[in-house]
């Protein structure tokens, strides 16, 4: 497991998993712009699309995903050095109010023009305003536990969190120590 710098100010990072060609941010943005991949996904999850979002046209789902993906992509590309990422990421568990070490977080678009966005980016919070992206998903159901592809994202978040704890990473300082020590 490696970590790629996403923003020059070192506030946003993304995991590069061993079996991937690039980091996970590049992978999910690629999938969310791949018509063939999206069609296959929405065909497999057509029942959720219809019951939760009242959408039966797969091509509309593909189109909306590409549009939302572009908005998310712009949001990340336009992060300024003094931007507060705590305004983009929220605790994964909506009921969590207290801070926790290496908290599990999510980012989603707000105020999308059509329906609530189903795109999610998942991350581990190293410190206030500093995040490591672990993955992303098209979340069509109320909870992540309901579907295999969102369960995979929960497992990935736990795997990255466990990796960090095993390597004595608990905040940005210890993360930097880890990165410099292994070089």
């Amino acid at each position, binding site marked *: 497991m*490696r*970590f*790629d*710098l*996403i923003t020059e100010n*070192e506030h946003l990072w*993304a995991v*590069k998993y061993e079996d991937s060609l*690039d*980091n996970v*941010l*590049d992978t999910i*943005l*690629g999938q969310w*712009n*791949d*018509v*063939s*991949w999206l*069609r296959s996904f929405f065909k497999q999850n057509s029942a959720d699309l219809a019951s939760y979002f009242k959408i039966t046209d797969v*091509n509309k789902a*593909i*189109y909306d995903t*590409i549009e939302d993906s*572009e908005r998310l*992509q*712009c949001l*990340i*590309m336009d992060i300024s050095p003094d931007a507060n990422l705590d305004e983009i990421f929220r605790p994964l568990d909506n009921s969590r109010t207290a801070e926790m070490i290496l908290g599990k977080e999510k980012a989603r678009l707000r105020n999308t023009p059509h329906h609530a966005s189903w795109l999610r980016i998942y991350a581990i919070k190293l410190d206030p305003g500093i995040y490591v992206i672990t993955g992303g998903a098209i979340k069509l159901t109320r909870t992540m536990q309901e579907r295999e592809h969102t369960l995979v994202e929960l497992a990935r978040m736990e795997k990255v969190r466990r990796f960090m704890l095993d390597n004595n990473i608990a905040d940005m300082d210890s993360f*930097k120590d880890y*990165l*410099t020590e*292994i*070089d």
Partner: protein
Amino acid sequence: MKTEKEILSGLKKHGSPTPSKWRENAEWRMANKSWLRYSQRIAMMMLDKMEEMGLTQKVVAQRMGCSQQYISRVLKGTENLSIETISKIEDALGLQILEPAYAR
């Protein structure tokens, strides 16, 4: 005790041996957005028709005289298609992609 410069250098070195192309890819999608939308729409039309006709990528590739790998890329909606290729797609799948524009 390492200096800030050494730490930063270490952090950058830690990046993957092959630097991430995420920003390059994202900028490419933004810069080519207008024709990508057409390419994506054509991919959707092709996939609809292929499903209706029960055709595989291999069969479509044979009908168009190109490789299956190329068809796979076309179906992602990321290929900048020539008019010649669009015409071949129309013939292979019985689709009308350019006809409405021509008819105007």
